[in-house]
Protein backbone atom coordinates (compact mmCIF):
# COMPACT_ATOMS: atom_id res chain seq x y z
CA UNK A 1 0.00 0.00 0.00
CA UNK A 2 1.71 3.23 -1.07
CA UNK A 3 2.04 5.69 1.77
CA UNK A 4 3.31 9.18 1.40
CA UNK A 5 4.32 11.58 4.16
CA UNK A 6 1.48 13.92 3.05
CA UNK A 7 -1.24 11.46 3.93
CA UNK A 8 -2.58 12.27 7.40
CA UNK A 9 -1.01 10.01 10.00
CA UNK A 10 -3.30 7.10 10.92
CA UNK A 11 -2.63 7.55 14.61
CA UNK A 12 -5.88 9.44 15.28
CA UNK A 13 -8.33 6.79 16.36
CA UNK A 14 -12.01 7.15 17.11
CA UNK A 15 -12.17 7.22 20.92
CA UNK A 16 -14.91 4.61 21.21
CA UNK A 17 -12.55 1.90 19.95
CA UNK A 18 -9.94 2.37 22.65
CA UNK A 19 -12.23 1.57 25.53
CA UNK A 20 -11.16 -0.66 28.41
CA UNK A 21 -13.51 -3.30 26.99
CA UNK A 22 -11.31 -3.68 23.91
CA UNK A 23 -8.22 -4.24 26.03
CA UNK A 24 -10.07 -6.66 28.30
CA UNK A 25 -10.97 -8.61 25.17
CA UNK A 26 -7.33 -8.58 24.04
CA UNK A 27 -6.15 -9.85 27.43
CA UNK A 28 -8.69 -12.66 27.21
CA UNK A 29 -7.60 -13.41 23.66
CA UNK A 30 -3.93 -13.64 24.67
CA UNK A 31 -4.89 -15.94 27.54
CA UNK A 32 -6.97 -18.25 25.35
CA UNK A 33 -4.37 -18.40 22.60
CA UNK A 34 -1.89 -19.93 25.03
CA UNK A 35 -4.54 -22.01 26.78
CA UNK A 36 -4.94 -23.87 23.49
CA UNK A 37 -1.62 -25.64 24.17
CA UNK A 38 -1.74 -26.89 27.79
CA UNK A 39 0.63 -29.76 26.97
CA UNK A 40 3.38 -27.38 25.91
CA UNK A 41 2.90 -25.25 29.04
CA UNK A 42 2.98 -28.29 31.33
CA UNK A 43 6.10 -29.60 29.57
CA UNK A 44 7.69 -26.21 30.25
CA UNK A 45 6.61 -26.41 33.88
CA UNK A 46 8.20 -29.85 34.18
CA UNK A 47 11.50 -28.67 32.71
CA UNK A 48 11.52 -25.53 34.88
CA UNK A 49 10.95 -27.73 37.93
CA UNK A 50 13.80 -30.11 37.07
CA UNK A 51 16.18 -27.18 36.63
CA UNK A 52 14.83 -25.70 39.88
CA UNK A 53 15.80 -28.87 41.76
CA UNK A 54 19.31 -28.87 40.24
CA UNK A 55 19.83 -25.16 40.99
CA UNK A 56 18.47 -25.58 44.52
CA UNK A 57 21.16 -28.14 45.39
CA UNK A 58 23.89 -25.82 44.13
CA UNK A 59 22.52 -22.95 46.22
CA UNK A 60 22.20 -25.20 49.30
CA UNK A 61 25.86 -26.20 48.91
CA UNK A 62 26.84 -22.53 48.61
CA UNK A 63 24.79 -21.47 51.63
CA UNK A 64 26.20 -24.36 53.68
CA UNK A 65 29.67 -23.01 52.93
CA UNK A 66 28.62 -19.39 53.61
CA UNK A 67 25.46 -19.17 55.78
CA UNK A 68 23.63 -15.86 55.65
CA UNK A 69 25.09 -14.86 52.29
CA UNK A 70 23.31 -11.90 50.59
CA UNK A 71 21.04 -11.56 53.64
CA UNK A 72 19.31 -14.89 52.88
CA UNK A 73 19.26 -18.06 54.96
CA UNK A 74 19.21 -21.48 53.26
CA UNK A 75 15.39 -21.58 53.22
CA UNK A 76 15.30 -18.14 51.56
CA UNK A 77 17.87 -19.20 48.97
CA UNK A 78 15.95 -22.36 48.00
CA UNK A 79 12.66 -20.44 47.93
CA UNK A 80 14.32 -17.79 45.75
CA UNK A 81 15.43 -20.53 43.36
CA UNK A 82 11.94 -21.98 42.82
CA UNK A 83 10.25 -18.56 42.70
CA UNK A 84 12.63 -17.47 39.94
CA UNK A 85 12.05 -20.73 38.04
CA UNK A 86 8.32 -19.99 38.28
CA UNK A 87 8.96 -16.56 36.68
CA UNK A 88 10.54 -18.03 33.50
CA UNK A 89 7.19 -18.57 31.75
CA UNK A 90 5.14 -15.52 32.73
CA UNK A 91 8.07 -13.05 32.54
CA UNK A 92 9.26 -14.74 29.30
CA UNK A 93 12.84 -14.65 30.60
CA UNK A 94 14.27 -16.44 27.56
CA UNK A 95 12.91 -13.69 25.31
CA UNK A 96 10.27 -13.49 22.61
CA UNK A 97 6.57 -13.97 23.26
CA UNK A 98 5.57 -11.10 20.96
CA UNK A 99 4.56 -11.65 17.34
CA UNK A 100 5.94 -8.26 16.30
CA UNK A 101 9.31 -9.36 14.74
CA UNK A 102 7.60 -11.71 12.26
CA UNK A 103 5.04 -9.05 11.42
CA UNK A 104 7.79 -6.47 10.79
CA UNK A 105 9.61 -8.88 8.48
CA UNK A 106 6.46 -9.80 6.56
CA UNK A 107 5.28 -6.20 6.36
CA UNK A 108 2.05 -6.96 8.23
CA UNK A 109 3.14 -4.40 10.83
CA UNK A 110 1.80 -1.71 8.46
CA UNK A 111 -1.70 -3.07 9.15
CA UNK A 112 -1.05 -3.18 12.90
CA UNK A 113 -0.07 0.48 12.84
CA UNK A 114 -3.36 1.59 11.31
CA UNK A 115 -5.50 -0.39 13.72
CA UNK A 116 -7.76 1.77 15.91
CA UNK A 117 -5.69 0.96 19.00
CA UNK A 118 -2.03 1.84 19.56
CA UNK A 119 0.34 -1.05 18.78
CA UNK A 120 2.07 -0.83 22.17
CA UNK A 121 -1.12 -1.08 24.26
CA UNK A 122 -2.52 -3.74 21.95
CA UNK A 123 0.60 -5.89 22.33
CA UNK A 124 0.72 -5.19 26.09
CA UNK A 125 -2.86 -6.41 26.58
CA UNK A 126 -2.32 -9.60 24.57
CA UNK A 127 0.95 -10.29 26.37
CA UNK A 128 -0.71 -9.76 29.75
CA UNK A 129 -3.16 -12.54 28.88
CA UNK A 130 -0.24 -14.81 27.95
CA UNK A 131 1.56 -14.00 31.21
CA UNK A 132 -1.55 -14.68 33.30
CA UNK A 133 -2.00 -18.10 31.73
CA UNK A 134 1.66 -19.06 32.07
CA UNK A 135 1.78 -17.80 35.67
CA UNK A 136 -0.97 -20.27 36.54
CA UNK A 137 0.14 -23.26 34.46
CA UNK A 138 3.91 -22.83 34.25
CA UNK A 139 4.48 -20.88 37.45
CA UNK A 140 2.55 -22.81 40.08
CA UNK A 141 3.96 -26.36 39.47
CA UNK A 142 7.60 -25.45 40.25
CA UNK A 143 6.42 -23.77 43.49
CA UNK A 144 4.39 -26.83 44.51
CA UNK A 145 7.33 -29.13 43.72
CA UNK A 146 9.66 -26.86 45.67
CA UNK A 147 7.27 -26.96 48.63
CA UNK A 148 6.99 -30.76 48.47
CA UNK A 149 10.71 -31.48 48.00
CA UNK A 150 12.45 -28.67 49.87
CA UNK A 151 9.72 -27.09 52.00
CA UNK A 152 9.94 -23.61 50.47
CA UNK A 153 8.16 -20.83 52.30
CA UNK A 154 5.13 -18.76 51.26
CA UNK A 155 4.54 -15.04 51.94
CA UNK A 156 2.65 -14.57 55.21
CA UNK A 157 -0.03 -11.95 55.75
CA UNK A 158 -2.28 -10.08 53.31
CA UNK A 159 0.10 -7.09 53.15
CA UNK A 160 2.91 -9.24 51.75
CA UNK A 161 0.55 -10.91 49.27
CA UNK A 162 -0.72 -7.52 48.11
CA UNK A 163 2.85 -6.26 47.70
CA UNK A 164 3.72 -9.42 45.75
CA UNK A 165 0.73 -8.98 43.44
CA UNK A 166 1.72 -5.37 42.72
CA UNK A 167 5.35 -6.44 42.27
CA UNK A 168 4.40 -9.19 39.81
CA UNK A 169 2.35 -6.79 37.73
CA UNK A 170 5.18 -4.25 37.67
CA UNK A 171 7.73 -6.98 36.86
CA UNK A 172 5.55 -8.04 33.96
CA UNK A 173 5.31 -4.43 32.76
CA UNK A 174 9.12 -4.08 32.80
CA UNK A 175 9.54 -7.46 31.08
CA UNK A 176 7.09 -6.39 28.38
CA UNK A 177 8.73 -2.97 28.03
CA UNK A 178 12.13 -4.56 27.43
CA UNK A 179 10.88 -7.25 25.03
CA UNK A 180 8.85 -4.67 23.10
CA UNK A 181 12.00 -2.60 22.49
CA UNK A 182 13.92 -5.73 21.46
CA UNK A 183 11.08 -6.64 19.07
CA UNK A 184 10.99 -3.16 17.50
CA UNK A 185 14.73 -3.32 16.84
CA UNK A 186 13.99 -5.77 14.01
CA UNK A 187 12.82 -2.76 12.03
CA UNK A 188 16.42 -1.52 11.85
CA UNK A 189 18.33 -4.82 11.95
CA UNK A 190 17.45 -7.29 9.25
CA UNK A 191 18.81 -10.12 11.42
CA UNK A 192 17.53 -10.07 14.99
CA UNK A 193 19.53 -13.06 16.29
CA UNK A 194 22.25 -10.85 17.69
CA UNK A 195 19.84 -8.69 19.70
CA UNK A 196 18.03 -11.78 20.92
CA UNK A 197 21.23 -13.35 22.22
CA UNK A 198 22.27 -10.10 23.86
CA UNK A 199 18.83 -9.82 25.46
CA UNK A 200 18.93 -13.44 26.63
CA UNK A 201 22.31 -13.02 28.30
CA UNK A 202 21.39 -9.70 29.92
CA UNK A 203 18.00 -10.96 31.11
CA UNK A 204 19.15 -14.31 32.54
CA UNK A 205 22.34 -13.00 34.13
CA UNK A 206 21.33 -9.55 35.41
CA UNK A 207 17.76 -10.33 36.49
CA UNK A 208 18.76 -12.65 39.31
CA UNK A 209 17.29 -15.67 37.53
CA UNK A 210 20.54 -17.64 37.76
CA UNK A 211 21.89 -16.33 41.06
CA UNK A 212 20.56 -13.77 43.56
CA UNK A 213 22.09 -10.40 42.63
CA UNK A 214 23.34 -10.05 46.22
CA UNK A 215 26.02 -12.63 45.35
CA UNK A 216 27.53 -10.47 42.62
CA UNK A 217 30.80 -9.04 43.90
CA UNK A 218 31.34 -5.31 44.57
CA UNK A 219 30.42 -2.75 41.92
CA UNK A 220 29.01 -5.45 39.60
CA UNK A 221 26.37 -6.23 42.22
CA UNK A 222 25.48 -2.57 42.72
CA UNK A 223 25.16 -1.93 38.99
CA UNK A 224 23.13 -5.12 38.43
CA UNK A 225 20.70 -4.21 41.22
CA UNK A 226 19.99 -0.82 39.57
CA UNK A 227 19.41 -2.13 36.02
CA UNK A 228 15.90 -2.82 34.64
CA UNK A 229 16.36 -6.61 34.62
CA UNK A 230 16.55 -6.60 38.42
CA UNK A 231 12.99 -5.23 38.41
CA UNK A 232 11.82 -8.34 36.51
CA UNK A 233 13.07 -11.10 38.84
CA UNK A 234 15.08 -9.95 41.84
CA UNK A 235 12.55 -7.32 42.97
CA UNK A 236 9.40 -9.51 42.90
CA UNK A 237 11.36 -12.43 44.41
CA UNK A 238 12.41 -10.16 47.29
CA UNK A 239 8.79 -9.08 47.73
CA UNK A 240 7.83 -12.77 47.88
CA UNK A 241 10.50 -13.44 50.51
CA UNK A 242 9.88 -10.21 52.39
CA UNK A 243 13.61 -9.44 52.23
CA UNK A 244 13.21 -5.99 50.69
CA UNK A 245 11.27 -2.90 51.82
CA UNK A 246 7.97 -2.80 49.92
CA UNK A 247 7.77 0.92 49.07
CA UNK A 248 11.24 1.45 47.55
CA UNK A 249 11.08 -1.89 45.68
CA UNK A 250 7.77 -1.01 44.01
CA UNK A 251 9.07 2.50 43.28
CA UNK A 252 12.16 1.01 41.62
CA UNK A 253 9.95 -1.21 39.45
CA UNK A 254 7.61 1.68 38.64
CA UNK A 255 10.60 3.79 37.57
CA UNK A 256 11.74 1.21 34.99
CA UNK A 257 8.15 0.58 33.86
CA UNK A 258 7.78 4.27 33.03
CA UNK A 259 11.23 4.58 31.41
CA UNK A 260 10.80 1.52 29.18
CA UNK A 261 7.20 2.38 28.31
CA UNK A 262 8.36 5.90 27.34
CA UNK A 263 11.11 4.49 25.15
CA UNK A 264 8.50 2.16 23.66
CA UNK A 265 6.34 5.15 22.71
CA UNK A 266 9.33 6.79 21.00
CA UNK A 267 10.20 3.50 19.30
CA UNK A 268 6.65 3.04 18.01
CA UNK A 269 6.71 6.58 16.61
CA UNK A 270 10.05 5.84 14.93
CA UNK A 271 8.89 2.64 13.26
CA UNK A 272 5.73 4.40 12.08
CA UNK A 273 7.92 6.86 10.17
CA UNK A 274 10.12 4.08 8.90
CA UNK A 275 7.17 2.07 7.59
CA UNK A 276 5.89 5.17 5.80
CA UNK A 277 9.30 5.78 4.22
CA UNK A 278 9.70 2.17 3.10
CA UNK A 279 6.15 2.09 1.74
CA UNK A 280 6.50 5.30 -0.24
Amino acid at each position, binding site marked *: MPHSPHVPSPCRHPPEDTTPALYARLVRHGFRRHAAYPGAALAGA*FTNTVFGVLRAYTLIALWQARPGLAGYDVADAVTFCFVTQAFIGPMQLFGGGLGIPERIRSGDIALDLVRPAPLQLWAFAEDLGRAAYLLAVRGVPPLLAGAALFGITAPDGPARWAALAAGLLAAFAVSFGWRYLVALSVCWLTDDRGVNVLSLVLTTFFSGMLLPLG*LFPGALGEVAAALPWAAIVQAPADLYLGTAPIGPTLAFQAFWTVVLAGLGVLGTRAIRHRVVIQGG
Partner: protein
Amino acid sequence: MVRTYALLIWTWTRSAAAYPASFALAAVFTTVTAAVDLGVILVVFANTTALAGFSRDEVLFLYGAASLAFCVTDLLIGNIDRVSGHIRAGTLDVVLIRPAAAWVQLAADRFVPARIGRVLQAAAVLGHSVAVIGPDWRRAWMIPVMLATGIVIFAALWTLAGALQFLLTDAPEVVNSFTYGGQQLTQYPLSVYGRDLVRGVTYVLPLAFVNWQPGLYVLGRPDPCGTPEFTRFLGPAAALLLSLLAALAWRQGIRHYRSTGSQG
Protein backbone atom coordinates in the same frame (compact mmCIF):
# COMPACT_ATOMS: atom_id res chain seq x y z
CA MET B 1 26.44 -44.05 6.85
CA VAL B 2 29.46 -41.98 7.88
CA ARG B 3 29.84 -40.77 4.31
CA THR B 4 26.20 -39.68 4.13
CA TYR B 5 26.56 -37.85 7.43
CA ALA B 6 29.78 -36.14 6.34
CA LEU B 7 28.19 -35.12 3.05
CA LEU B 8 25.15 -33.66 4.81
CA ILE B 9 27.10 -31.62 7.37
CA TRP B 10 29.49 -30.45 4.66
CA THR B 11 26.51 -29.19 2.67
CA TRP B 12 25.18 -27.25 5.65
CA THR B 13 28.66 -25.89 6.38
CA ARG B 14 29.03 -24.65 2.81
CA SER B 15 25.66 -22.94 2.99
CA ALA B 16 26.67 -21.25 6.28
CA ALA B 17 30.03 -20.23 4.80
CA ALA B 18 28.22 -18.35 2.03
CA TYR B 19 27.66 -15.58 4.59
CA PRO B 20 30.99 -15.41 6.46
CA ALA B 21 30.13 -12.34 8.58
CA SER B 22 26.88 -13.91 9.72
CA PHE B 23 28.73 -17.14 10.49
CA ALA B 24 31.38 -15.34 12.57
CA LEU B 25 28.72 -13.42 14.50
CA ALA B 26 26.72 -16.59 15.18
CA ALA B 27 29.88 -18.27 16.50
CA VAL B 28 30.47 -15.33 18.83
CA PHE B 29 26.82 -15.39 19.99
CA THR B 30 26.81 -19.11 20.84
CA THR B 31 30.07 -18.65 22.76
CA VAL B 32 28.63 -15.72 24.72
CA THR B 33 25.49 -17.68 25.63
CA ALA B 34 27.59 -20.61 26.82
CA ALA B 35 29.75 -18.26 28.87
CA VAL B 36 26.76 -17.44 31.11
CA ASP B 37 27.15 -20.80 32.91
CA LEU B 38 30.85 -20.08 33.37
CA GLY B 39 29.94 -16.64 34.76
CA VAL B 40 27.64 -18.29 37.32
CA ILE B 41 30.45 -20.57 38.55
CA LEU B 42 32.82 -17.61 38.83
CA VAL B 43 30.25 -15.58 40.81
CA VAL B 44 29.66 -18.56 43.13
CA PHE B 45 33.41 -18.79 43.79
CA ALA B 46 33.63 -15.06 44.34
CA ASN B 47 31.66 -15.87 47.51
CA THR B 48 33.30 -19.08 48.66
CA THR B 49 36.58 -20.97 48.27
CA ALA B 50 35.00 -24.42 48.20
CA LEU B 51 31.67 -25.86 47.04
CA ALA B 52 30.77 -29.25 48.53
CA GLY B 53 34.47 -29.83 49.17
CA PHE B 54 35.73 -28.86 45.72
CA SER B 55 37.88 -25.85 44.83
CA ARG B 56 37.18 -23.43 41.99
CA ASP B 57 39.72 -25.02 39.66
CA GLU B 58 38.39 -28.51 40.36
CA VAL B 59 34.84 -27.36 39.58
CA LEU B 60 36.11 -25.69 36.40
CA PHE B 61 37.79 -28.97 35.47
CA LEU B 62 34.48 -30.85 35.91
CA TYR B 63 32.59 -28.05 34.09
CA GLY B 64 35.09 -28.03 31.21
CA ALA B 65 35.03 -31.81 30.78
CA ALA B 66 31.22 -32.05 30.81
CA SER B 67 30.77 -28.95 28.64
CA LEU B 68 33.27 -30.12 26.04
CA ALA B 69 31.52 -33.50 25.74
CA PHE B 70 28.08 -31.86 25.69
CA CYS B 71 28.98 -29.17 23.14
CA VAL B 72 30.66 -31.66 20.78
CA THR B 73 27.51 -33.81 20.91
CA ASP B 74 25.28 -30.77 20.49
CA LEU B 75 27.35 -29.67 17.48
CA LEU B 76 27.30 -33.09 15.82
CA ILE B 77 23.79 -34.44 16.49
CA GLY B 78 22.06 -31.76 18.58
CA ASN B 79 19.15 -31.39 16.16
CA ILE B 80 17.99 -34.98 16.64
CA ASP B 81 15.52 -33.63 19.24
CA ARG B 82 13.51 -31.91 16.52
CA VAL B 83 11.63 -35.11 15.75
CA SER B 84 8.32 -33.75 17.05
CA GLY B 85 8.67 -30.72 14.79
CA HIS B 86 9.26 -33.00 11.79
CA ILE B 87 6.25 -35.14 12.74
CA ARG B 88 3.98 -32.10 13.03
CA ALA B 89 5.25 -30.57 9.78
CA GLY B 90 4.96 -33.88 7.96
CA THR B 91 8.63 -33.76 6.91
CA LEU B 92 9.43 -37.03 8.71
CA ASP B 93 7.71 -38.88 5.87
CA VAL B 94 10.14 -37.30 3.42
CA VAL B 95 13.05 -38.36 5.62
CA LEU B 96 11.82 -41.96 5.77
CA ILE B 97 11.51 -42.46 2.02
CA ARG B 98 15.07 -41.29 1.33
CA PRO B 99 17.68 -44.06 0.89
CA ALA B 100 19.64 -43.13 4.05
CA ALA B 101 19.20 -43.89 7.74
CA ALA B 102 16.64 -41.57 9.38
CA TRP B 103 18.92 -41.07 12.39
CA VAL B 104 21.78 -39.84 10.20
CA GLN B 105 19.54 -37.47 8.27
CA LEU B 106 17.92 -36.02 11.38
CA ALA B 107 21.20 -35.74 13.29
CA ALA B 108 22.73 -33.76 10.44
CA ASP B 109 19.59 -31.74 9.74
CA ARG B 110 20.21 -27.99 9.90
CA PHE B 111 23.74 -28.60 11.18
CA VAL B 112 24.98 -25.37 12.81
CA PRO B 113 28.77 -25.13 12.33
CA ALA B 114 28.81 -21.94 14.44
CA ARG B 115 28.35 -24.11 17.54
CA ILE B 116 32.08 -24.78 17.23
CA GLY B 117 32.47 -21.57 19.26
CA ARG B 118 31.08 -23.27 22.36
CA VAL B 119 33.30 -26.30 21.82
CA LEU B 120 36.35 -24.05 21.77
CA GLN B 121 35.16 -22.20 24.90
CA ALA B 122 34.72 -25.47 26.80
CA ALA B 123 38.09 -26.76 25.55
CA ALA B 124 39.76 -23.55 26.73
CA VAL B 125 38.25 -23.87 30.24
CA LEU B 126 39.26 -27.54 30.45
CA GLY B 127 42.77 -26.81 29.19
CA HIS B 128 43.19 -23.94 31.64
CA SER B 129 41.96 -25.95 34.63
CA VAL B 130 44.19 -28.94 33.77
CA ALA B 131 47.18 -26.60 33.51
CA VAL B 132 46.38 -25.03 36.90
CA ILE B 133 45.60 -28.26 38.74
CA GLY B 134 48.51 -30.17 37.22
CA PRO B 135 47.10 -33.67 37.70
CA ASP B 136 49.35 -36.71 38.09
CA TRP B 137 50.35 -37.59 34.51
CA ARG B 138 50.01 -41.31 35.24
CA ARG B 139 46.30 -40.63 35.69
CA ALA B 140 45.88 -38.14 32.85
CA TRP B 141 45.27 -40.89 30.28
CA MET B 142 41.75 -40.92 31.66
CA ILE B 143 41.00 -37.41 30.27
CA PRO B 144 40.57 -38.47 26.61
CA VAL B 145 38.73 -41.63 27.71
CA MET B 146 36.45 -39.45 29.84
CA LEU B 147 35.70 -37.11 26.93
CA ALA B 148 34.95 -39.99 24.54
CA THR B 149 32.69 -41.61 27.17
CA GLY B 150 30.94 -38.33 27.78
CA ILE B 151 30.29 -37.75 24.09
CA VAL B 152 28.84 -41.26 23.70
CA ILE B 153 26.63 -40.86 26.81
CA PHE B 154 25.29 -37.48 25.66
CA ALA B 155 24.76 -38.80 22.11
CA ALA B 156 22.74 -41.70 23.54
CA LEU B 157 20.81 -39.24 25.67
CA TRP B 158 19.97 -37.03 22.66
CA THR B 159 18.89 -40.13 20.74
CA LEU B 160 16.64 -41.20 23.64
CA ALA B 161 15.25 -37.65 23.70
CA GLY B 162 14.53 -37.89 19.98
CA ALA B 163 12.89 -41.31 20.40
CA LEU B 164 10.76 -40.01 23.26
CA GLN B 165 9.38 -37.32 20.96
CA PHE B 166 7.56 -39.93 18.92
CA LEU B 167 5.34 -40.15 22.01
CA LEU B 168 5.53 -36.50 23.12
CA THR B 169 4.70 -34.84 19.84
CA ASP B 170 2.90 -31.95 21.51
CA ALA B 171 5.22 -31.44 24.46
CA PRO B 172 8.76 -31.63 23.09
CA GLU B 173 10.13 -29.39 25.85
CA VAL B 174 9.99 -32.29 28.34
CA VAL B 175 13.10 -33.84 26.81
CA ASN B 176 15.09 -30.66 27.56
CA SER B 177 15.04 -31.81 31.19
CA PHE B 178 17.22 -34.76 30.21
CA THR B 179 19.46 -33.20 27.60
CA TYR B 180 20.07 -29.66 28.86
CA GLY B 181 19.27 -30.86 32.39
CA GLY B 182 22.08 -33.40 32.04
CA GLN B 183 24.41 -30.61 31.01
CA GLN B 184 23.32 -28.48 33.99
CA LEU B 185 23.73 -31.40 36.42
CA THR B 186 27.23 -32.36 35.30
CA GLN B 187 28.57 -28.80 35.56
CA TYR B 188 28.96 -29.17 39.34
CA PRO B 189 30.51 -31.89 41.52
CA LEU B 190 27.83 -34.49 42.20
CA SER B 191 28.57 -34.20 45.93
CA VAL B 192 26.47 -31.01 45.71
CA TYR B 193 23.30 -33.01 45.04
CA GLY B 194 21.12 -35.18 47.25
CA ARG B 195 22.09 -38.81 47.75
CA ASP B 196 19.07 -40.24 45.89
CA LEU B 197 19.66 -38.00 42.90
CA VAL B 198 23.31 -39.09 42.75
CA ARG B 199 22.28 -42.76 42.94
CA GLY B 200 19.80 -42.13 40.12
CA VAL B 201 22.40 -40.56 37.80
CA THR B 202 24.92 -43.30 38.64
CA TYR B 203 22.83 -46.44 38.27
CA VAL B 204 19.82 -45.41 36.16
CA LEU B 205 20.80 -42.57 33.81
CA PRO B 206 24.60 -42.84 33.90
CA LEU B 207 25.41 -39.11 33.85
CA ALA B 208 27.88 -39.68 36.70
CA PHE B 209 30.24 -41.27 34.17
CA VAL B 210 30.37 -38.19 31.92
CA ASN B 211 32.85 -36.38 34.15
CA TRP B 212 32.30 -37.19 37.84
CA GLN B 213 33.59 -40.75 38.27
CA PRO B 214 36.49 -40.45 35.78
CA GLY B 215 37.14 -36.90 37.01
CA LEU B 216 37.59 -38.15 40.58
CA TYR B 217 40.21 -40.58 39.25
CA VAL B 218 42.08 -37.83 37.40
CA LEU B 219 41.99 -35.58 40.48
CA GLY B 220 43.04 -38.53 42.67
CA ARG B 221 40.16 -38.04 45.10
CA PRO B 222 37.91 -40.54 46.84
CA ASP B 223 34.18 -40.31 46.12
CA PRO B 224 32.43 -38.31 48.89
CA CYS B 225 29.38 -40.48 48.20
CA GLY B 226 31.42 -43.60 48.92
CA THR B 227 31.42 -45.58 45.66
CA PRO B 228 34.33 -48.06 45.42
CA GLU B 229 37.45 -47.31 43.35
CA PHE B 230 36.56 -49.61 40.43
CA THR B 231 33.43 -47.56 39.53
CA ARG B 232 35.84 -44.88 38.19
CA PHE B 233 36.49 -47.18 35.23
CA LEU B 234 32.92 -48.26 34.46
CA GLY B 235 32.23 -45.26 32.18
CA PRO B 236 32.80 -46.96 28.80
CA ALA B 237 30.62 -49.93 29.81
CA ALA B 238 27.83 -47.62 31.00
CA ALA B 239 28.09 -45.59 27.78
CA LEU B 240 27.83 -48.75 25.69
CA LEU B 241 24.80 -50.00 27.62
CA LEU B 242 23.01 -46.66 27.30
CA SER B 243 23.79 -46.53 23.57
CA LEU B 244 22.21 -49.96 23.07
CA LEU B 245 19.11 -48.83 24.95
CA ALA B 246 18.96 -45.62 22.93
CA ALA B 247 19.30 -47.53 19.65
CA LEU B 248 16.47 -49.84 20.69
CA ALA B 249 14.24 -46.94 21.69
CA TRP B 250 14.98 -45.13 18.43
CA ARG B 251 14.09 -48.26 16.40
CA GLN B 252 10.85 -48.61 18.32
CA GLY B 253 10.02 -44.98 17.65
CA ILE B 254 10.65 -45.26 13.90
CA ARG B 255 8.87 -48.62 13.64
CA HIS B 256 5.74 -47.41 15.42
CA TYR B 257 5.58 -44.08 13.66
CA ARG B 258 2.38 -43.82 11.67
CA SER B 259 2.20 -40.92 9.32
CA THR B 260 -1.03 -39.00 9.47
CA GLY B 261 -1.20 -39.35 5.71
CA SER B 262 -1.14 -43.15 5.71
CA GLN B 263 -4.32 -43.45 7.72
CA GLY B 264 -6.33 -42.02 4.90
